[in-house]
């Protein structure tokens, strides 16, 4: 029965190998040279093995008559030996090299010992050489699959993250020339054609286009850009030809910085990865020693104490099975691959993770601390409300904007923005600025006063106090109170959802730190549903607060800080995990952070946490699954139920499943 199964399997291998060689092997980039060579070896040796299956020992024994006694036996052995060398010579060579270099226990050594042992048993019994060769063959098939699958997914993930522009177009003598982006000097003009990547940061001087920023931000809606707008490298121009004056060198451009982050990301190893490499170091020698014990101790016990025959060959065979099971490949390959796929998937969603250790920490986050301005709010002041006005809103804004038109204060700028038109300065005269209070000016011949409550008191106009948080501009027209304008930092549209979604993904506490006034801070916190607020903090106080929060939380729960500004950098590096908002934010913050959200959307925080959890779940699944199967096989092998075939199928099968499972980390879009 087993023979028939093996025959069928070998036939499948021969056909598949031939098919793979014909179809994938020829295609460009289908297989590497090494992989093709290996496939040819697999094909040849499987074919020979299949042929030898139909030539039983008796057939060879007939040769004895023509040559010398036992000649058939040796010729049969030679045939199998040749096949064995075809499939396994590199393993044997590596095993020898390993021994010579003082590194005995690697998987090559294990496979070499196991198969040579099986061969030796077969010579002794003139029995089944098939097993040793088949085990080597299936091991090689497993290795081939591993190399192919990992190589393929590695390339796919790298392609996802590949935002590197290959060239920049420069116009010379009316012709476009492609040059290395590194060679473009700051201030030169580059041309970006539809479908091309913007290679270097700059300002558009001619043309307009919609830009696809999805590679950078994960945002699928294209952004419109026209002359005068700043563009960042890595965007893809979709519709029009753009002429861009570069403002940075290639090395300083957004795309280079991001690539730098991503490429160095998986260099920082997570604890699970460290665990696995340490585990592999202990595991292999341990299994080898137990295999040795299994080969020697039970026969001795049987001989000396139980008075039975030693049964050496049975126990040696079981020990050899042990060796086959002991390769730690599935673990060693699937864990880094899971993290890499997780980081790749996250970066596709606009979340840059600087290392797999941070992905691991992020999955344990229980406390999230936010900076307010620029993180939960937009960081730009805008007119938030107009109250108690007698005249139309637009009219009041118009008066205030015109009165303030000479000022460059952020408040007056936000008034200008709300007004929406270029203020006609000729309508304004007699501007008096009263420092710290406001402005009095004549607009269209009418006296307009815009400023704070002190200004109103100064003018003797009775005003109405405002209950909203924010900066209040009272406006008096012709000495009569005309209402007030509330200017405040607008909360980002997704902030509330972001907090809610953090809570639903199991975050225990959300905290907001801000340098802003208590009244403003409290109002924002209540409207967003944040648990704790600390307001009126200086940058140094923020660090202190975070340290305090780090002290009170439990050891296992991790604290993440989310911020964007230059003054957030110290806090970002102090927290367990620093998350910087917006890759277009301050460089210092991005440098200090461990995770960078490419767009400013706080909703991405909970997404990042869910990605990290999925990734870690898959890592643990793989660890548990691989170890469980290995130990089960070890146990079965020791009592003699599992033979070498089962052992090699368990080894290869677990690895294939673990690799496929690891690739699931890449699919994080719907999280």
């Amino acid at each position: 029965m087993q023979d028939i199964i093996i025959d069928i399997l070998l036939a499948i291998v021969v056909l598949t190998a031939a098919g793979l060689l014909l179809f994938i092997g020829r295609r460009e980039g289908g297989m590497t040279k090494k992989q093709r060579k290996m496939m040819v070896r697999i094909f040849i040796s499987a074919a020979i093995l299949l042929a030898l299956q139909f030539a039983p020992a008796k057939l060879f024994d007939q040769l004895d008559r023509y040559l010398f006694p036992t000649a058939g036996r040796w010729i049969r052995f030679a045939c199998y030996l040749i096949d064995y060398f075809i499939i396994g010579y590199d393993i044997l060579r590596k095993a020898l090299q390993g021994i010579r270099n003082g590194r005995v226990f690697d998987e090559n050594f294990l496979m070499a010992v196991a198969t040579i042992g099986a061969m030796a048993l077969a010579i002794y019994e003139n029995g089944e050489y098939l097993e040793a060769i088949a085990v080597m063959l299936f091991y090689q098939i497993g290795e081939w699959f591993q190399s192919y699958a990992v190589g393929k997914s590695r390339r796919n993930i790298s392609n996802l993250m590949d935002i590197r522009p290959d060239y920049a177009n420069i116009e010379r003598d009316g012709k476009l020339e492609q040059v290395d982006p590194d060679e473009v000097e700051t201030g030169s003009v580059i041309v970006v054609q539809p479908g091309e990547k913007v290679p270097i940061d700059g300002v558009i001087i001619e043309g307009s286009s919609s830009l696809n920023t999805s590679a950078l931000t994960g945002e699928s809606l294209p952004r419109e850009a026209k002359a005068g707008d700043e563009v960042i490298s890595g965007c893809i121009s979709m519709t029009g030809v753009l002429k861009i004056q570069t403002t940075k060198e290639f090395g300083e451009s957004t795309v280079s910085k991001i690539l730098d982050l991503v490429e160095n990301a998986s260099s920082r190893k997570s604890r699970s990865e460290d665990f696995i490499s340490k585990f592999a170091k202990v595991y292999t020698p341990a299994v080898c020693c137990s295999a040795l014990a299994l080969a020697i101790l039970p026969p001795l016990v049987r001989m000396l104490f139980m008075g039975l025959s030693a049964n050496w060959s049975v126990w040696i065979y079981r020990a050899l099975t042990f060796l086959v099971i002991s390769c730690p490949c599935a673990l060693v390959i699937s864990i880094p691959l899971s993290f890499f796929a997780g980081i790749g998937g996250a970066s596709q969603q606009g979340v840059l993770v600087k290392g797999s250790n941070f992905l691991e920490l992020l999955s344990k986050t229980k406390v999230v601390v936010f900076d307010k301005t620029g993180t939960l709010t937009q960081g730009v002041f805008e007119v938030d409300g107009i109250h108690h006005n007698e005249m139309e809103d637009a009219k009041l804004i118009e008066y205030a904007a015109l009165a303030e038109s000479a000022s460059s204060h952020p408040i007056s700028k936000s008034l200008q923005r709300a007004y929406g038109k270029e203020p006609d300065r000729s309508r304004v005269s007699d501007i008096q600025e009263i420092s710290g209070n406001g402005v009095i000016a004549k607009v269209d011949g009418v006296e307009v006063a815009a400023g704070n409550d002190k200004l109103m008191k100064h003018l003797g106009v009775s005003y109405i106090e405002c209950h909203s948080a924010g900066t209040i501009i009272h406006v008096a027209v012709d000495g009569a109170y005309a209402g007030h304008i509330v200017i405040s930092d607008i909360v980002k549209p997704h902030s509330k959802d972001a907090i809610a979604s953090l809570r639903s993904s199991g975050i225990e506490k959300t905290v907001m730190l801000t340098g802003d006034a208590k009244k403003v801070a409290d109002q924002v916190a209540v409207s967003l549903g944040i648990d704790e607020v600390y307001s009126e903090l200086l940058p140094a106080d923020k660090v202190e607060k975070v340290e305090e929060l780090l002290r009170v939380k439990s050891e296992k729960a991790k604290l993440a800080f989310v911020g964007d500004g230059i003054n957030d950098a110290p806090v970002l590096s102090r927290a367990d995990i620093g998350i910087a908002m917006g890759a277009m934010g301050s460089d210092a913050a991005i440098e200090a952070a461990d995770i960078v959200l490419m767009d400013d959307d706080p909703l991405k925080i909970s997404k990042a946490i869910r990605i990290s959890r999925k990734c870690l779940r898959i890592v643990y699944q793989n660890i548990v699954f691989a170890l469980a199967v290995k130990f089960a096989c070890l146990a079965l092998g020791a009592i003699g139920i599992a033979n070498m075939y089962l052992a090699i199928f368990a080894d290869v099968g677990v690895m294939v499943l673990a690799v496929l499972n690891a690739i699931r980390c890449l699919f994080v879009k719907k999280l």
Partner: protein
Amino acid sequence: MKKTYKIEVDCANCANLMEEATRKTAGVASATVNFMTQKMIVEFEDGQDPKSVMKDVLKACKKVEPDCEIEF
């Protein structure tokens, strides 16, 4: 001084071994091998010539993984 090299290695465990071997090579301050991006980042000790140190690194790596390649 820090330099990045392209490498060719096709198993993750071998990459770990290469990393270890590189770290132990004289003249190397620290090293990370990134299997997934097939890159090796080596930080050299002050005053070392990267070219000659990398020769030793390649030799050490070939010892642990005969199939590996480092471009330098």
